[in-house]
């Protein structure tokens, strides 16, 4: 079974600064997907960025980028030019799209609460 670990329960960053959230995972699979979700106080889960394991290039979405290290099984999220609206719980998630049954489900980390300070 896959596991996802987020070792930083809470983090804070000054507005306009850059912050990196860490995520590690454990799997024996070679093909899989990794995601970062954001959940603000409104509790709406928002997909921030995704990475396919077969792609060497790190995914980027505007101010959000990832550092994907497949050999180290690491998938960190970098937020540049942090904004107050980035304050949220951030969840790292893993999915094996090929397997059947419960192995195809999305496995979440425990989350990192990020606070952007004015």
């Amino acid at each position, binding site marked *: 079974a896959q596991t996802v670990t987020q070792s930083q329960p809470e983090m804070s960053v000054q507005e306009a600064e850059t912050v990196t959230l860490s995520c590690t995972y454990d799997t024996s699979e070679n093909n899989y*997907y990794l*995601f970062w*979700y954001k959940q603000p106080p*409104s*509790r*709406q*889960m*928002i*997909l921030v960025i*995704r990475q396919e394991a077969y792609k060497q290039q790190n995914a980027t979405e505007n101010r959000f980028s990832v550092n994907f290290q497949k050999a180290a099984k690491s998938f960190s999220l970098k937020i540049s030019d942090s904004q107050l609206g980035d304050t949220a*719980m951030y*969840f790292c998630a893993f*999915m094996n*799209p090929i397997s059947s*049954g*419960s192995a195809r*489900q*999305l496995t*979440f*980390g*425990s*989350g990192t*609460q990020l606070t952007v300070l004015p």
Partner: protein
Amino acid sequence: SAVISQKPSRDICQRGTSLTIQCQVDSQVTMMFWYRQQPGQSLTLIATANQGSEATYESGFVIDKFPISRPNLTFSTLTVSNMSPEDSSIYLCSVRGTLVSYNEQFFGPGTRLTVL
């Protein structure tokens, strides 16, 4: 991305009663899921809603407590039966497999349930 709505958005219920939560998607999707999230915690998968057949439940969740229906590719319901205060939580509907993106998973806004 898929647009997902849930009803109700929140409710306060008495012990021993049941509540049915509805999930509506604006487009046909392959897979629909129901999650539970305790405040400040991560998400726990309750079950996968299967169209036209019984839902597939995860360990610790049973059909008698959480009956699920999925009559078509855009709609599902989750019922929380014979509620107790321990059922107080946020319940989220989630979908995967849209025409645009097969492997991305999207979430509804959640239903905040409080059981007295």
